[in-house]
């Protein structure tokens, strides 16, 4: 179109700053030297605005390109995959900046920038990041606006860009909901798995205390009906029954053991959906005890739920649990696992068990006495107990008497096994904070917990939580991790509002945010193939064909509406004339002269003139004005304004 290409300097400055903003978050994702290369080129282009001769010529540009590609190759060994691909686009963007020769180059740069902006979502998908990317895309659209108009003011360009985004939003939402999601085959994914913290299948001294300091979300639960009471919210994870006196591990070859018969359930069922955050283990933390679950979840021999899906992706499960249950008889294998001991017990321990009447044959009494022992003796609950390398259980029971849930659970199970009572350690999460805004529970890493399970005649496996004996607050409330780091002993955060007002306010804000984030994860990030068909089936859309028809129909409808709104200004101005005329009619109606349906303005004017001869001139003028504005050619704004003033002045 335009032969000579000229890009005004403010537009170029605007574009370059935008690019700086777009690439910036990649500092967290890409190798630093590539990022430095990009920003050097960006800076070079900036300087080039005032010193055009300093910009690289063809030879230098070729060398830079070769250098950039070499760096890229050494960094990633190729250009395939998320990291390498993103680096490629960032480098290409930087190189292209140094060579802006025609308007076409500006478009190329803009399109590359959109791709770089989108690649950010491969690394992070939070709401804040989405808002940031939306903002930079708005600025990018604004630069295109500047190139194509005479208006180079930043503000008006941004305003127009936001208007475009607002108009585009409805269509994009329709497309988002109805565009058929097809899962890409696994082999296409080049994703590297990242290490995540979480419960492990072994328990060592200190292993859970690391987690307690972490505020990361593990999963969220939304109950269909009532919530179980706080003291019954035990989310079952791996069951550890083997020990060498220090380490506790899951029973070997767990996967081949046949599942035990389903427990007998009594009481109320709790139905809930569980939204797991990405995990490195395929465990699903169901409420004790799980009765019903669907594919792809299975239950292993320890009543623990595992999924056959990729745990590294967010997933949603619908589960039913009962808090009252009876697992029935004990299999020989379970008995063998639950009574396993690493060699003989020491004299001290045997003495303790004897004192607590462990060998008398009444397991339930023994359990009570052990718990009472923890309570009355000088036992403390702390996350920073002294380290005991050699005999952690003995050291804990007789010397330090300080520990946290894993110490109490392991010591308790050990004592039970000495007394020949089948027992094992269960790890998982306990509690969870209720988000009153969204009415769901949020379970964080800091809720990680370990408790014990004892098999009793006629009752089956029964949960015993020794930590509850020593620190019942731990079970009723949530630990405040901020305070944990500061002090050695744990103080608890009270749920029922004894905390300071400021903290409450923060807490509410956090809950609100949690609610928003939950819905974001659930409806936006996690809107996959499965969720889509579930959501759409509510609206009666079940197959691909209807989906595509629906998408096209809805998008066309919105586009039609938009077109009507954008292109029908005439409609608007004539409607305005009509509105003003109606005001005039109302004034006459107050005086008893009502326009009848189907009566034209001329006839009505004749009647009005007859009734109010004193105002004949004014009535004629207004009627004629209306006829001209409403039925004539497009009236200008000025004419309309004049007409309105005239009607406003008309008094009768």
């Amino acid at each position, binding site marked *: 179109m*335009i032969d000579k290409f000229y890009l005004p300097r403010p537009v170029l400055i605007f574009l370059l700053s935008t690019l700086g903003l777009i690439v910036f978050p990649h500092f967290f994702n890409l190798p630093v030297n590539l990022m430095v290369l990009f920003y050097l080129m960006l800076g070079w282009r900036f300087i080039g605005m005032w010193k055009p001769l300093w910009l690289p010529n063809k030879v230098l540009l070729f060398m830079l390109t070769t250098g950039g590609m070499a760096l890229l190759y050494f960094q990633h060994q190729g250009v395939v995959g998320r990291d390498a691909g993103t680096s490629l686009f960032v480098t290409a963007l930087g190189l292209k900046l140094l060579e802006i020769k025609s308007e076409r180059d500006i478009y190329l740069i803009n*399109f590359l920038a*959109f791709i770089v*902006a*989108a690649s950010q979502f491969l690394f992070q*998908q939070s709401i804040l990041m989405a808002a940031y990317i939306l903002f930079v895309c708005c600025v990018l659209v604004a630069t295109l606006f500047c190139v*194509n108009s005479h208006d180079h003011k930043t503000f008006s360009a941004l305003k127009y860009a936001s208007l475009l985004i607002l108009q585009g939003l409805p269509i994009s939402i329709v497309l988002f909901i109805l565009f058929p999601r097809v899962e890409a085959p696994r082999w296409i*994914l080049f994703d590297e798995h990242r290490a995540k913290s979480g419960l492990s299948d072994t328990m060592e001294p200190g292993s859970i205390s690391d987690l307690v300091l972490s505020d990361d979300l593990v999963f969220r639960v939304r109950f269909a009906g009532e919530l179980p009471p706080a003291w019954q919210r035990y989310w079952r994870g791996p069951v550890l029954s083997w020990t060498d006196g220090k380490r506790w591990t899951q029973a070997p070859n767990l996967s081949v053991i046949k599942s035990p018969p389903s427990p007998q359930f009594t009481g109320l069922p709790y139905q809930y959906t569980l939204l797991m955050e990405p995990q490195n283990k395929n465990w699903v933390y169901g409420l004790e005890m799980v009765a019903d679950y669907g594919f792809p979840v299975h239950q292993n021999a320890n009543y623990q739920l595992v999924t056959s899906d990729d745990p590294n992706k967010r997933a949603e499960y619908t589960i039913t649990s009962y808090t009252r249950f009876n697992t029935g008889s004990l299999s020989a294998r379970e008995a063998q696992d639950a009574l396993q001991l690493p060699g003989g017990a020491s004299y001290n321990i045997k003495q303790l068990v004897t004192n607590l009447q462990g060998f008398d044959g009444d397991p339930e009494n023994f359990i009570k006495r052990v718990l009472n022992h923890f309570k009355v003796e000088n036992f403390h609950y702390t996350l920073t107990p002294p380290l005991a390398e050699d005999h952690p259980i003995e050291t804990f029971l007789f010397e330090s008497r300080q520990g946290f849930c894993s110490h109490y659970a392991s010591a308790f199970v050990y004592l039970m096994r000495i007394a020949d009572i089948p027992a094992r350690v269960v790890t998982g999460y306990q509690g969870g904070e209720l988000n009153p805004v969204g009415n769901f529970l949020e379970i964080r890493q800091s809720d990680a917990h370990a408790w014990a399970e004892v098999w009793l005649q006629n009752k089956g496996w029964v949960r015993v939580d020794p930590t509850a004996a020593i620190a019942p607050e731990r079970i009723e409330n949530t630990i405040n991790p901020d305070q944990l780091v500061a002090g050695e002993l744990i103080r608890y955060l009270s749920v029922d509002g004894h905390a300071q007002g400021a903290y409450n306010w923060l807490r509410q804000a956090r809950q609100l945010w949690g609610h928003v984030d939950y819905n974001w994860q659930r409806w936006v990030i996690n809107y996959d193939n499965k969720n889509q068909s579930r959501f759409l089936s509510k609206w009666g859309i079940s197959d691909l064909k209807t989906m595509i028809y629906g998408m096209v129909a809805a998008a066309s409808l919105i586009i039609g509406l*938009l077109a009507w709104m954008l292109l029908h200004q005439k409609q608007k101005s004539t409607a305005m004339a009509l509105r003003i005329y109606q005001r005039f009619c109302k004034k006459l109606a107050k005086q008893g002269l009502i326009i009848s349906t189907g009566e034209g303005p001329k006839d009505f004017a004749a009647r009005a003139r007859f009734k109010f001869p004193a105002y004949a001139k004014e009535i004629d003028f207004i009627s004629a004005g209306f006829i001209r504005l409403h039925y004539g050619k*497009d009236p200008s704004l000025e004419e309309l304004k004049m007409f309105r003033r005239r009607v406003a002045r008309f008094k009768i």
Partner: protein
Amino acid sequence: MLALLLLMAFVYNNNLVYLLTFLLASIFFITILHTFRSLSGLSVQKVRSTPVFLGDAAGFEIRIDNPGGSARHIHITLESTERLMLKTQSQTQLTVYAMTQKRGRQQVGTITLASTFPLGLFRAWSPVRLSFETLVYPKPAQSQLPFPETPAAHVGQGLTKKGADDFYGVQEYQAGDSVKQIHWKAFAKGLGVFSKQYSGESQTEIWLDYQFTPGNTVEDRLSQLCRWVCDAEKLGVRYGFVLPGLSVSPGQGREHTRKCLEALALF
């Protein structure tokens, strides 16, 4: 780009990339409406055109009305393209130029109004064909021939060269001034080229007659006549004008010249 983004969203099952792709796609699509709107409602009217000599660019003055409530950013093309902003509810007058190829009447041709507003992804255009013409006079001849000796039938005295008697003043050199008239002293001082004017019997009349005009072809003759008409007008000589089938009695002034040039253009 959108295809690449869609591929990215598909491969990584990334809903936010999907969302961004759809958003960009809808924005790009909506700009079609905006681009269309930036032209719709505009009206183009002719204002005036001025006659030109063959070889010069003919200017056509037009007026573009923007009755809409928003400013328009358009490109207007006749032979070259011009970018233009039309303010809200405004009238803009501008002149578009077309090279002249032939003597006679020349139509404006197709004026194209186009817009790539707002994002440059689409272009809306509208060819405007106005019945709008201008006169193209013959190109004035380059050679400096003296005015023709007029047949005595028309004039009693014959041609007296423009006064060689009394010095009258100095004026800027005009093509056609005699070399003798050049004010050499001023030229030597570097003031530019001026020619001295003498007033004499300025009531002289000449006749410019097609029949007595040298030239190999019709166009050459017309071209020479055109040159004489211009020179005569410049020098303030009264002249009569004769074309086959047309005779204009001697006269002077802009209107007279226009009449003669028009006759030349349409011959």
